[in-house]
């Protein structure tokens, strides 16, 4: 599955239950809008690490990586140990 869609499905399921994944724009500001905060970051990081095999102990993590779906996707493509299919597109 396209990582952006998987990320949206996760965010919507966990934090925005009334929203359909396609309603969430790639650039919607997740931090300013209070969807993601310093504490909800941990479960998101754990989910990403699990799903995309990211070595979180060796990766620098910044709030800036979670500003939007697009930013999270960039974070995944930068840090995922296994190349994720479809990640290099667009």
């Amino acid at each position: 599955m396209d990582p952006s869609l998987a990320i949206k499905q996760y965010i919507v399921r966990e934090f925005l239950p009334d929203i359909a994944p396609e309603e969430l724009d790639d650039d919607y500001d997740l931090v300013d809008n209070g969807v993601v905060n310093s504490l909800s970051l941990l479960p998101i990081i754990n989910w990403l690490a699990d799903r995309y095999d990211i070595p979180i102990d060796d990766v620098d993590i910044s709030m800036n990586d979670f500003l939007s779906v697009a930013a999270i996707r960039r974070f995944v493509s930068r840090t995922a140990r296994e190349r994720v299919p479809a990640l290099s597109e667009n």
Partner: protein
Amino acid sequence: MGRSRSLLACLVERARVRPDSVALVMGDERVTYAGLHAMAVAGAGRLAALGLPAGRAVAVRAVKSPRTVASIMACLLAGRPFLLPSAELGEHALEELLARAGCAALLDDDELRELGPHGDAGPGERGHEDVSFMLTTSGSTGVPKIVPLPAAAVDRFTDWAIDRFGLGPGTAVLNYAPLSFDLCLLDVWATLKAGGTVVAVDAARASDGRYLAGLIEAENVAVVQSVPMMYRLLADACRDRPLRGVRHVLMTGDKVSARLLDELPALFPAARLYNVYGCTETNDSFLYEVTGGERSLPIGRPLPGVEALVVDEDGTVLDGPATGELLVRTPFQAAGYLGREGGFGGGRFRSGDVVHRAEDGVFTLVGRNDFQVKVRGTRVNLAEVEHLLLAHEAAVDAAVVGVPDDLAGVRIHAVVRRTAPGALNSLALRDYCRARLPRAAIPTTIQVVDDPLPVTPTGKPDRQTILRNLRNRS
């Protein structure tokens, strides 16, 4: 208490006597006292070039950076009152706040922006003399209340803190809170006054326990002040890895759980542990030193010079062992809110906190009124969030509840009934909240519904039922 020393005079003196010692560690930057002084002098020069009327306030947006600290020092040098708006404040709320404080210019990290002329007078022209810091209450209204602190009150407070926690040249003190918080009067300003080193936590990594522990160890931090949440993060990150260099641990702003209390002595084997009670209006007013074996922490006894009264519902002052609302007057406080007549009644601030005073004079916090909660250490009034949601054109009804949360303290859940299906969704409500609320007050979860909300027999939103429904769903 003897005559207090001027914060500004001490800062200038530090730059002269110990120019090369490190004042600030922020991210990759290490700024010496000479460096900080030079930045501040340059900033004061830029301010002077604006030619603002004497006594007119300016604002320094509290982004956590050395420039912000230097800008604050520039305001001190220029003798101007300055407002410290939170860096997280929405744009509408910021604009309104600046206008209400009568700010003539905004210093935003590296940028100095002159604001249009408007009629609001400076604090000095409104009966608040010699104001330096103007802090805002962390209340969740779109526009927080402004607390103008007299320079002398800040001088007295920083002297107390230096003396009480043994701050001196070279003492490294952790700064966890944003620069707009009153806590910074201790961990930033008392530290700099004493010639110590402020070790600032990067706001983006404030919930990363291993980063926090690494910073404390690498910079030899001796004094730590924070809401309990940070100690929870540290305790989880530092199993069997005690932080031996820390001498004083100040817990403030929230209840400390019994479990955390048990873990702290092993985490900080060389430290004295304290519970500190205070608020923006009065600054710190109570201190309790942990002796070991407590199941819950009292707030302790009033600090020297602090008057503390316990009153019943009619305002009658109670003597001896008693439970009631706490009224305090401190040597560190504001006279009242900016722009509100009369100041705090009789100079005493009504805390809104219910306390119990025991036979031995030790105070314990019993609770707050129902609508006040703490989210990640920031005070939020749930009723005010509810009012704001109700004011949305597509909202028919709204209820906001605080859900107890291990880490955040409380997380906010909102239920909003919309005018029609499709008229509103949670993304639109978040956009709406973002422009009007500090970030901590934006509900963590927003449920948009089409059915009427549960109500109590008196017709008020039934928050207990909403909470119960929420628990049953998850």
